[in-house]
């Protein structure tokens, strides 16, 4: 019996019991669709976590002045241990792996706007701060190079500050007073929410760092420098370049320790990625269980089918079917069931994930790997769970099978 004929007759046999074949397939369909969707959702989660971490700034380095752990043992004297604006401009000029830089200063205090007031921190930043933090302006503008040079009294409000000081009114072009210094509000940031530590990142006011240093904090040096590398991979290069540059600029001897600290967030990123990968595996294994249950469903139906079609098997044997032919026939039937189920499941899984991502606004990724995996899995299930019933059919005694009522 040729393979094509066997497949055709298997299809015909399944067609004769449409409802039952469909219900049997449903197990595999749901299993495969679940595996595909779960993997897609998991990978989507991985992606969005990566994205969020990138928005926290995984390619971001923070440079702090002084070796903080060596409080009493400062090596250099005076200004050499701290970061200056010149250091910042040297870094952006000379370190090739650095893309953006934002010198940092900060202050805090009571902010007054009209009859409302609010206490928050004022971050002095450079013009590329928002690029580094990947934090867009909701409306209004950010300050310019000109504002930085002139130490202009302009500021941008975080969402929380804007809500508290201006309620529903637009803060742009309004004036607020920070420690009695009037600032013109030129923009409002989009809502960023809490950071990993649970702090409200929107409870902030941004102003040019020059303004903060000269008008508010009166602390002449930089509190920190925020730097973003050209890419995630370039982080360590950037770190080395900055370290070498600063050591040279600060005239640190080779035997001396750094008078600055560079921190990065790659640890956080890798932990988060690992977590989501574990989540993906967990989801996929739960889904695989449903695939397994689907396989048992196939075995169950094939066993019923063998019993029910004992007479047919007897007829086929009496007209010349060998045990091998019967085995192949039932195995192919199981395989066709699981394959059709698998293909339908893949389609359903893909459509399902697309719907999930459009409704839940959750990115989903369907990889070739997950399709091949579930396809292969459904074939394996067809063979594995189809074999026992098929063998049972093939081993029937033709006389008994013919007489079976």
């Amino acid at each position: 019996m040729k393979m094509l004929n066997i497949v055709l007759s298997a299809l015909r046999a399944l067609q004769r019991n449409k409802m039952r074949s469909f219900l049997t397939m449903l197990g595999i369909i749901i299993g495969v669709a679940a595996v595909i969707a779960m993997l897609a959702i998991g990978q989507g989660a991985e992606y969005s976590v990566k994205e969020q971490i990138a928005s926290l700034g995984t390619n971001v380095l923070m440079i702090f002045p002084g070796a903080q752990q060596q409080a009493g043992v400062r090596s250099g004297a005076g200004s050499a241990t701290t970061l200056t604006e010149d250091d910042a401009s040297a870094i952006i000029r000379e370190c090739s792996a650095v893309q953006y830089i934002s010198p940092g200063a900060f202050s805090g205090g009571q902010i007054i706007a009209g009859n409302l007031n609010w206490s928050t921190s004022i971050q002095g930043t450079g013009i590329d701060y928002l690029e580094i933090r990947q934090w867009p302006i909701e409306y209004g503008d950010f300050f310019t190079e000109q504002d930085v040079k002139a130490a202009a009294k302009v500021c941008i409000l975080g969402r929380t500050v804007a809500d508290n000081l201006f309620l529903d009114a637009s803060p742009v072009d309004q004036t607020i007073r920070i420690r009695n210094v009037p600032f013109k509000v030129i923009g409002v940031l989009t809502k960023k929410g809490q950071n990993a530590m649970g702090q409200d990142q929107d409870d902030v006011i941004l102003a040019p760092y020059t303004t903060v240093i000269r008008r508010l904090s009166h602390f002449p040096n930089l509190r920190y420098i925020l730097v973003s590398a050209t890419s995630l991979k370039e982080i360590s290069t950037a770190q080395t370049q900055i370290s070498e540059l600063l050591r040279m600029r600060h005239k640190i001897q080779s035997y001396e320790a750094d008078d600055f600290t560079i921190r990065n967030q790659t640890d956080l990123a890798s932990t988060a990625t690992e977590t989501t990968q574990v989540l993906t595996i967990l989801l996929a294994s739960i889904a695989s269980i449903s695939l397994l249950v689907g396989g048992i469903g196939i075995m169950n139906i094939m066993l019923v089918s063998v019993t029910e079609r004992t007479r047919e098997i007897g007829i086929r044997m009496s007209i010349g079917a060998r045990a091998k032919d019967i085995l192949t026939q039932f195995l192919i039937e199981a395989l066709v069931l699981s394959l059709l189920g698998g293909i339908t499941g893949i389609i359903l899984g893909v459509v399902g994930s697309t719907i999930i991502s459009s409704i839940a606004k959750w990115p989903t990724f369907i990889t070739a790997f997950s399709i091949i995996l579930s396809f292969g899995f459904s074939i394996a299930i067809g063979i594995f769970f189809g074999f026992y019933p098929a063998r049972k059919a093939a081993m029937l005694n033709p006389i008994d099978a013919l007489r079976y009522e």
Partner: protein
Amino acid sequence: MIRDTALSSPRTNGTLIRIEHLTKVYKLGEIDVHALRGISINVSKGEFVAIMGASGSGKSTFMNILGCLDIPTKGSYILEGIDVGKLSRDELAMIRNKKIGFVFQGFNLLSRTSALENVELPLFYGATSTKVRKEKAIEALEKVGLGDRIHHYPNQLSGGQQQRVAIARSLVNNPSIVLADEPTGNLDSRTSVEVMGIFQELNNNGITIILITHEPDIADFAKRHIVFRDGKIRADKVNDRPKTASEVIKSMPVIDDEEDEVE
């Protein structure tokens, strides 16, 4: 194809079946059941044999062995020169496919499968191309007078028509013998005679037919009677004046137009 050469028939001088001292013993738990106690017969090409006997006489067991569905405990069964007792399960299946055509009491057609596909079925298990398979199946169906109903399903056919499909199926591979096990057991008397008419016609065209029946009326259409009792042959005689189905039909009153009636 080694198997084909194994099945190719040496010259047998017209003897199709040679059975010698055949016994069959079933084990039912501790008890041995002697279904056949030494059977020896020869059947030549072109014969029309009726095997008769009450139930329990061993005729069904004999039929199973003849049909290569079962193998003898002792003794030899040589079909066209091939010692069937020495064949494997798969080789027996090949013999059933190529040399034996079965017709059963209960028709044993695949339900929800058209007449054509039912008849094609034995050819599936040989190496026949789709085109040849269809041609042969149609030819066989035409032989039994069902050329116009090839796409009907068994449940759309009367009992007599279903049995004719079964006969067509048994013929489609040009077998050496057609084995009919109570082929008229489920049919009314008129249809029974019609089916016997088909067998007679096939026999006239040279096909060897072995018919198992317990009805003397039906056995009368055969040319030779073998009577079984208690696992032994009680009688083996030539039927000098077999009835002719076409004549019997003429003498029967017409009750109903059975052909168009669906069971």
